[in-house]
């Protein structure tokens, strides 16, 4: 799964009255140094709490699972690329979903957004924004709503700042002409790891013993949101008539918006279980083919694992209901980026076999595979007619969950093998280790 890698610019001084004045419209990413001397993310290093990412916004293409090429808008990761190279790499580089943003509690995210324009539609001069959906106590300027703040024009960069203090599952998307830009695909996964992940080895959490490398969904204080593997699963759907109208410079049919491609992480089944990044066939239209679908949805775990599904829905049209064939309940432990526990400590979590999720809703679901035998299971929508890639059957909103046997090793041994893979020397400063 593609994650944005942070990048640290040492050359930029950030203070009042002194700034580098660029030439007028310009790509200009910002990444101030962390000089506050406070280890806000709790990882033992006080100088690495600034996480910097750079994305471009523009247009591109993706292929649906039935092969159909769809024109779309999207974001593209250019973190680490010199500013001078960003336009060229960003143009026609849109990805669907947008690159996953993964940060930790206590980290300050500097998210630069550069607008590279629409290559297929040079008549469009759409600005773009980033809306960090669910960010607590948001300020208008960084909330990304164009009417209530500012949006970035073509050829320029705006840098958003987010002090991540609430762990959980969120999402992000463009909010300019939001019905159009979201239908066209400018959206992606976003989540924040809790600071509980960085506790010292063997910390007692009310009877649960934390070990280095253990991961939790929230600061549960008792290990109740511990998980072995996590997967973001974002729901979305395309209306091909709308996308084709955009491609062929026609008026956009908002009133008749009817989605017929139903997707998880930007793909319909069976592409959801293809672990490769997918190359689009934009060359069929005379454009450069790009890798534009980089997030698969194949869920893999070992018997006994706890799987955390970070589920969000950014469809512009539908609620969707999801279920699995595991035969065991899913436990909803968080929603709206909050632990399901009342202010007075009541456990509000619940078990279910069907999750109904509307646009803009986010759920954290833990599946304990202890009693599930090894095998191939399915995560799919019970709105069964959405198991379609438009007019193609046996597709749509479905993925597979492959539970591997322990293969003779004890569950504890498997877990410690996984922990050893989390080598702190491989950590990117301020980021999460690469998988």
């Amino acid at each position, binding site marked *: 799964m593609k994650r944005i890698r942070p990048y640290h610019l040492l050359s930029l001084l950030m203070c009042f009255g002194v700034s580098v004045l660029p030439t007028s419209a310009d790509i200009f990413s910002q990444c101030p140094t962390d000089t506050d001397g406070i280890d806000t993310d709790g990882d033992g290093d006080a100088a690495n709490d600034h996480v910097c990412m750079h994305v471009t916004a523009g247009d591109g293409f993706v292929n649906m699972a039935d*092969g159909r090429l769809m024109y779309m808008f999207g974001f593209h990761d250019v973190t680490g690329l010199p500013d001078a190279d960003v336009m060229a790499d960003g143009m026609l580089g849109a990805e669907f979903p947008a690159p996953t943003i993964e940060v930790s509690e206590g980290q300050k995210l500097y998210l630069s957004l550069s607008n590279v324009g629409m290559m297929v539609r040079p008549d469009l001069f759409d600005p773009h924004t980033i809306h960090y959906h669910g960010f607590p106590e948001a300020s208008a300027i960084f909330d990304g709503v164009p009417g209530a703040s500012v949006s970035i024009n073509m050829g320029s960069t705006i840098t958003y700042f987010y002090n991540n203090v609430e762990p959980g599952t969120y999402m992000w998307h463009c909010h300019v002409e939001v019905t159009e830009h979201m239908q066209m695909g400018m959206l992606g996964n976003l989540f924040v790891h809790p600071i509980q992940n960085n506790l010292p080895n063997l910390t007692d959490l009310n009877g649960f013993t934390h070990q280095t490398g253990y991961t939790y969904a929230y600061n549960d204080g008792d290990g109740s949101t511990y998980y072995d593997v996590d997967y973001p699963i974002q729901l979305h759907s395309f209306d091909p008539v709308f996308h084709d109208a955009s491609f062929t410079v026609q008026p956009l049919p908002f009133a008749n918006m009817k989605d*017929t491609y139903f997707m998880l992480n930007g793909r319909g*089944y*069976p*592409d959801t279980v*293809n672990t490769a990044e997918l190359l689009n066939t934009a060359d069929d239209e005379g454009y450069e083919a790009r890798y534009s679908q980089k997030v698969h949805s194949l869920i893999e775990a070992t018997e006994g694992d706890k799987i955390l599904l970070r589920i969000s829905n950014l469809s512009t049209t539908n*609620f969707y*209901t999801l*279920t699995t*064939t*595991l*035969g*065991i*309940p899913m436990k909803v432990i968080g929603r709206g980026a909050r632990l399901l526990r009342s202010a007075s400590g*009541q*456990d*509000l*979590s*619940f*078990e*279910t*076999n*069907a999750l*109904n999720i509307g646009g803009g809703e986010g759920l954290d679901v833990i599946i304990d595979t202890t*009693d*599930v*035998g090894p*095998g*191939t*299971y*399915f995560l799919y*929508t*019970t*709105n*069964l*007619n*959405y*198991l*379609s*890639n*438009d*007019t*193609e*059957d*046996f*597709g749509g909103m*479905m993925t*597979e969950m492959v539970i591997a046997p322990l293969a003779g090793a004890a569950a504890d041994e498997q877990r410690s093998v996984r922990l050893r893979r989390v080598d702190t020397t491989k950590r990117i400063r301020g980021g999460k280790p690469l998988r």
Partner: protein
Amino acid sequence: MNHKMLKTISCGVLPLMTLAIVASTATGAEYYLRAEAFTKNLPDPSGVGTIPVPMWGFALDDSFEGLELQAVSVPGPRLTVPAGDTTLTIHLDNNLSVPISIMIPGQITTKTPVFFTDGQGRQRVHSFTHETLAGNGTMVDYTWTGLEPGTYLYLSGTHPAVQVQMGLYGGVTIDAAAGEAYAGVTYDAEVMLLYSEIDPALHAAVDDGSYGTTGPTSTVDYNPKYFLINGEPYTSATLPMSAGAVGNRVLLRFLNAGLQTHAPNLLGMYMSVIAEDGNVYNFPKGQYSLTLPAGQTKDAIVTPSADGAYPLIDRRSDVTNAGGFSLGGMVRFLEVAP
């Protein structure tokens, strides 16, 4: 006033109840089910006469390929696992022309999915579990052990987008003990409410073979016209459902075998919603509205303090019969005796 502590089971119009052929083994319930095509007559939207719609459904037999006396129905026969028991075996006889299977969502059993390879060499799933081939000569078994108390659906796990909405679904219930749905949740009366939909055009295409060939090639344009509770749309001839008496704890078992979310609203009384998909909540929810997403079940307890007929209406306005003058569709009256 003295009430008889009756356990009345109200399931609408079903040819068979749990009083019928249940071969209880020492470890649970055993059923012979037969899948077959049949025709269902649904109300014409004009309000006069009926329209025949081809369906698939299950019938309850007393043996494999025996006398086949019982009629096919939608929903299929209600299956009951004796209170406190944990095992269910279904012997399946498939009289349809395509393979089928049976799943109980949320209840565990060994599953061996069946795949096929598509035109691009990609593997796609055809059945979530093992299949029963068309016209099988030997019975195929589906077994669950370790069943938990609750209200569940059983439905086909094969080509689900087509087969479930054709009618291959029914309800399964398991109580924790006699008169006790879950541990500590007693009830005096019970009402079973299984919601589903029918898209007549899609049924016709599946039945005449044009689905997947000259007609629709996927169910993306699913557009239901009939809305059923326990297999029947509401008409002026629909009788109220018996829902216990004043002071009873009445268990309402909601199941949605449809493909769309429904929203039953109860008028005149609040429900205490206690469980979903057989999982009891930590805290019950006091509501008069209920959201019933596709494939989900919910259990609620009402304790009526007054007799009368309480309307239960689908607030999604699925209350017509193919666009005819309402009320139709997903409406029922819960009759509480004095």
